[in-house]
């Protein structure tokens, strides 16, 4: 019941977001056809503007947009001529979702044990060593890790292909590049929350009961320590699934991230609107899932 109510609440929220995005984009100076060569005659220019309804008042354009949206039509891209926004999303989203999903999985599988190890050894050399590594992972941008991985593992060692998106082997390096950054962040977060949890009273009680440290960690502490990871995971997953500009550029992957950046730089209004709605919808939905998962993990959290 609670879930349904929150799910319905997403619709007005998405409407507000789409309206704001629509207005914000048109506040930025410049238009979609600025970088084109000047058209042969004013008539042609007028015809192009009319085709994309750019000659109407902004509010009327927005009303039209909503009408098309209700029919599931996101419109025509102004930059990639003759491609509908639906086509672009349908062709690029699966690629981004595969890469993002793998990177997310990699980040959690690596990051959670990493953080727990640091928390258990807090203040000792192990903590500093792994802490340094986790910071390196969280702080070195993909711009640097990507080329280094390509040079060492693809060009020198020849284990993996340098770029493109074809066989399962092509997936490895982009996943590592994208996942390491988030693995480092997850590790820092888990270290913090596990440390806090291990200091709480019910852990002292469990110790007094005579449980071994590993039992305390797995049966009692981990469950609570993962709460912040759940909250953090929702926006992280939304980010990952909608593509990463840098990784897609380095590895020449046909994903959504490149469209995201280019459509804002090119003022490709219909494409950008479609992507904003996709991202916002995914983010809000994942946040909702995270809230539900939190209530499952932590018996103290209750929703009415």
């Amino acid at each position: 019941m609670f879930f349904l109510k929150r799910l319905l609440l997403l619709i007005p929220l998405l409407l507000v977001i789409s309206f704001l995005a629509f207005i914000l984009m048109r506040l930025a100076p410049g238009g979609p056809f600025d970088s084109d060569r000047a058209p042969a005659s004013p008539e042609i220019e007028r015809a192009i503007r009319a085709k994309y309804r750019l000659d109407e008042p902004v509010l009327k354009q927005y009303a039209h947009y909503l009408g098309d949206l209700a029919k599931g039509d996101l419109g025509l891209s102004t930059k990639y001529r003759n491609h509908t926004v639906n086509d672009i999303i349908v062709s690029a989203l699966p690629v981004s979702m595969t890469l993002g999903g793998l990177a997310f999985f990699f980040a959690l599988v690596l990051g959670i044990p990493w953080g727990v190890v640091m928390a258990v050894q807090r203040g000792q050399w192990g903590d500093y060593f792994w802490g340094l590594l986790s910071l390196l992972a969280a702080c070195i941008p993909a711009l640097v890790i990507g080329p280094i991985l390509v040079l060492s593992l693809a060009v020198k060692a020849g284990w993996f292909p340098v770029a493109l998106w074809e066989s399962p082997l092509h997936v490895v390096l982009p996943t590592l590049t994208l996942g390491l950054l988030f693995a480092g962040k997850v590790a820092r977060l888990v270290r913090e929350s596990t440390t806090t949890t291990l200091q709480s009273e019910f852990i002292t009680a469990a110790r007094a009961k005579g449980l071994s440290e590993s039992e305390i960690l797995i049966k009692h502490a981990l469950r609570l320590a993962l709460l912040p990871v759940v909250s953090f995971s929702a926006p992280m997953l939304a980010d990952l699934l909608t593509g990463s500009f840098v990784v897609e550029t380095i590895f020449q992957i046909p994903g959504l991230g490149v469209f995201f950046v280019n459509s804002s730089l090119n003022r490709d209004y219909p494409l950008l609107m479609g992507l904003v709605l996709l991202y916002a919808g995914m983010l809000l939905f994942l946040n909702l899932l995270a809230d539900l998962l939190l209530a499952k993990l932590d018996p103290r959290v209750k929703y009415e």
Partner: protein
Amino acid sequence: MRFRRNKPAVISLCFLAALILLVVLWPWVAPYSWETISDAQFQPPSAKHWFGTDVHGRDLLTRVIFGARVSLLVGVVGAGVAFVIGVAWGAVSGYVGGRIDGMMMRFVDVLYSLPSIIFVIVLLTTLKEGATKWLTSTLGAKAAAQAPMLLLFAGLGAVSWLTMARIVRGQVLALRSRAFVDASRSLGASHARIIWRHILPNVWGIVIVYLTLTVPSVILYESFLSYLGLGIQPPMASWGSLVAEGAGQLNPIRIYWWLVVFPSAMLVTTLLALNFLGDGLRDAFDPKGQI
């Protein structure tokens, strides 16, 4: 004091102070200027150029220290905005609760769902002329040249406080119904006093930890924007843009490792120091801590 007994935190504080001092004093002691181009291109590190030189023969050490200025400023501004707006917004929202809480948090949700790159582009392009004019008339042409950078700070600040507001609100919501808050209320304490004396001290720990995470993410975001050509423009430098420049020079034939290693090392060392500092402050401010 608890903080002084935490060795890594004290060392980190000294390191950060030394770094800031170095950045401020460097223009007077530097043998090279950050924008002087020379014929000595791609020199590996030597006694003359400790960090080597870049594609235009500029001294990398000087550029790294010069770049610290932008990166540290960006980090401080982002963290400052996150701290002031984020804590205030989250504390009020969580403490007041009810309908106002719902509205304030939906506002955060909406801002959060709009990709931040749109904000930054709109801010940078719409306000550029206005800001330049205003700065020219009030502070002169020299200040007006800094207008794009100020707008960059504003854009980064505008997106950096959202997560902080969420985190603080969650904590305050849990603290609001605790017995010690009820006790204080029944003794007639004002809302301001309850927030300030009883709720916020319990929140500082997570706020500080999150701030030390905000600084690196803002610094990295700046480097991403520079990579897109929206942030710091050459010949200016920031750590992010230097790292990106170095990464752009990576190729299988000749490896100019110093172009990547030194800027990254400075970035990572600083972020490491910030993390140790945050850890130390967290322990020092924790009302439950014993030692």
